[in-house]
């Protein structure tokens, strides 16, 4: 638990979009999926998840519908809308650019300067 990375601000939405892009999920499922795809490195506080989900719905990036979960319980499932998919692509590209740039910057050696 202690070596989990702090989430950078703004990355929660992107992670949620990613999780949902892999298939419709209910809230708890999103949590599990993020843990799974980040190999438990990124754990999201349960309380922070729902406001984020609601925000994304409001922004029209996700849509929600009630269904039945694998545990045979009623649950609300989220999936990407068209706008959501578009936003997800853009944000991913943006993130990758930043990440590459950051990595390059941090890898710079004295002789390269």
């Amino acid at each position, binding site marked *: 638990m202690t070596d989990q990375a702090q989430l950078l601000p703004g990355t929660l939405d992107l992670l949620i979009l990613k999780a949902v892009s892999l298939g419709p999920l*209910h*809230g*708890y*499922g999103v949590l599990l999926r993020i843990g799974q795809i980040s190999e438990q490195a990124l754990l999201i*506080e*349960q*309380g922070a998840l*729902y*406001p*984020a989900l*609601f*925000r994304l*719905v*409001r*922004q*029209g990036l996700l849509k929600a519908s009630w269904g039945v*979960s694998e*545990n045979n*319980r*009623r*649950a*609300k499932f989220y999936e990407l*809308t*068209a*706008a959501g998919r578009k936003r997800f692509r853009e944000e991913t590209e943006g993130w990758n650019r930043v990440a590459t740039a950051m990595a390059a910057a941090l890898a710079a050696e004295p002789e390269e300067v």
Partner: protein
Amino acid sequence: MKSLAYVRSLAAKFFHRSEVAQDMDEELRSHIQHRADDLQRPGISRAEAERRARIEFGGQERIAEECHEALGGNFIETAIQDVRLSIRVLRKSPGFTAAAVLTLALAIGANAVVFSIMNGFILRPLNVPHAESLYGLWRIQDDMSESYPDYIDLRDHNHSFEALAAYNITQAGLDTGENPISSWIEEASGNYFDALGIEPYLGRFFHASDEHGPDSAPYMVLTYAFWHAHFREDRTVLGRVVEVNKHPFTIIGIAPPEFHGTLLFFHPDFFVPLIDQGQIDGNDLNARGSRWIFMTIGHLKAGVSKAEAIADLNSIGAYLKKTYPKDEAQVTFELARPSLYGDYLGRPVREFLTGLMLLSGLILLAACANLGSLFAARAADRSREVALRLALGSSRKRILRGLFTEALLVSLVGGAVGLWGSVFVLQGMSAWQPFPRWPVHLSVNPDAHVYGMALLLALASGFLFGAVPVRQVLATNPYQVVKVGTPGRMGRRITAREVLLVVQIAICAVLVTSSMVAVRGLARSLHNNFGFDPQNTLLVDTDLRMAGYSGDRVPPMQKRMVDALGTIPGVESVGLSDQIPLGDTAPQTNVFTDNTSDLRPSNAAANPVMFKISPEYFHAARTILLSGRNFTSHDDKNSPRVAVVTPPFAKKIFGSVTNAMGGSYKMPDGTRIQVVGIVEDGKYGSLTEDPQPAMFLPVLQWPSTSTYLVVRSGRDPQQLAAAIRTTLRQLDAGLPVFIQTRSKELEFILFGPRMATLALGVLGGMGAMLAVTGIFGMAAYSVSKRLRELGLRVALGAQRKELLQTALGRAVKLLALGSTAGLLLGILATPVLAFIVNQATPHDPLILVGVVLSMALLGLLAAWIPARRALSVDPMRLLREE
């Protein structure tokens, strides 16, 4: 797409609020169930798993709230929630709420009234098209009046005005077939309505083309109000012939309802052409030296600046002076707003209202300071509640929003109540006719500007005093408060709240000082020597021209009137004068020393006020003859011209009073007049004037149709007035007269100072009230904060005096500090007051004592209840409670 989703979520939330909440609850529950499914394993029961899941999940309420916020559209919803909560909270302390609302209602009401008056008098333009380019001509050396020939020259030779119109105000007898009435009229130049761009409501106006020389256009245009009141809006009056001063005039039109001339307060009954004024006033249209036209006005041409227009007028003025040296002195012009008679009324009114606005602004500020400290005290009292809410996961933002909602709620309700009250006051003022003899209306009904202003003030003050406790809330540390209780003492440093209180007390002291100065000044000016005795005197005011008298028929009629009134039982004496001191006009004329031969205005030795009186006048008015003789009935047309003058006149013309007796001086037409008596000095134009030269001439030598009868009698004024009316009707039933007591007539001149004193008094009273609540709030707060300490002291044997000192020492110190500052400021501000209220001086021990006493009294009043509470501290109970 996105916005659509947003709207949908908003709409869903708004219209299906409980559904949304249920939905959210269910989702969160489902989450916990799923988590519990994962946690459940051998050794952990289902119940335990669910418990752990819930703990892991955290505060469900807070998350639900955050989700709610994330859904958007919360602003309105939380606002409604906040308002509901605030109403509940405020209703729990009705005393506090009522005090706060009342304080604000008074402050905002006062501001609304003052602003509305300012709006009505100064800000709102005249109700004529393009009022912004309408100016009146003002002779810098004199006033706005012109002679008819000068007006014609100015009208025809200027290049700056679209058209120059002129009008005069006068009184005339109107006979419509019933009893003749005395009415107020405007004599207007033919181009008057066209120059102003006014269209008739009914019929037609008169135009420049109707003028064909003196008395050539016997037409009359009624104002809507007069048509309504006198003719009951009868449309058939058009074309009717009525008599004005016994001359026939045809009613040709009705002016629109909103038009009543271009003077703000003055509402005439009808308009007649200026060219006919020979029939009405008997002024000479050709006399260049007789400046009887009240005002000349016109719209500047587009593209002509004020300075250009003034230069243009001045060049005409220079031409006039060169061409007519006998009649014209220096002629230079200024352009002035016509609505308040230029700067003559405009400047004092503007200055006074600005001062008043400033004062009422200060009142509002004081009220805000007051409420700010009340709210801060409340926030401190509620610090435990705030701390609990914070500990339970409420956000500081939310708590602050709640506080602001309370503040705004109070300010809006207070503003509404204040506005409601002010509308009543203003309607009363608008309906009020302060002078029965004059058609003066104060149109100060509130309009959209006033409502907007009140709303703005309410919101601003709500935010202002709502902001006071913000820091306090932000600094609240929930754990500290819950653990230790409210901090007992905040230390000795001076808090912002105390500074506010001192400022407020100072403001109050300024107001109390200035209202006392004003009241004393007014009281003293009423006991001035006016040069006559206003007690036990009735004034009968008429003009014989209204009943068609002129020339040789006037003096015998005047003599008959004086004699007839003298026979009424109970009448001690009756005198006659063409005008009266401190009346509506004090006519002036140039006079010259006896050895001046070139009688042009610039050579004049003095410009005294002039009264034409009957021999009995001095006795009836109780004006004391200092030396020489009174007039007799032998001082008539056939005997040498004589005068009785006042000491200032004597000094100005002859150097001393002794030289004046028997000396001679000249009138502008060259008539030599010999001084035969000296009477005491008096006030003639206003109560604030410096000693002015004045002369009295025998009315038999200088006939005048304008007639004031001064009737001295100890009888009841109403009975006497009825008797006078009957007597005069027997002499001539067609002569309208106006009768009122001399004191009532004086009210006209006292109106300004009275209103000023009243306004200051009201504001001073409000300031005092605010200071009381402010000190009370502060003292009560400090006592309640230190109850425990006080209890301890009592337990340790403290005396009552020491207790009081601890509890209230600081409040008393602040009070003393604020009062002193206010008193000094008030004294410094007196010169401003002296401008309005005669003899306003702070160098009056009574005022100093009065201010100190009243401030002390206010302090005592305010500290009474907190002091009682401090003294009744029961240490046992307090210690037990803690």
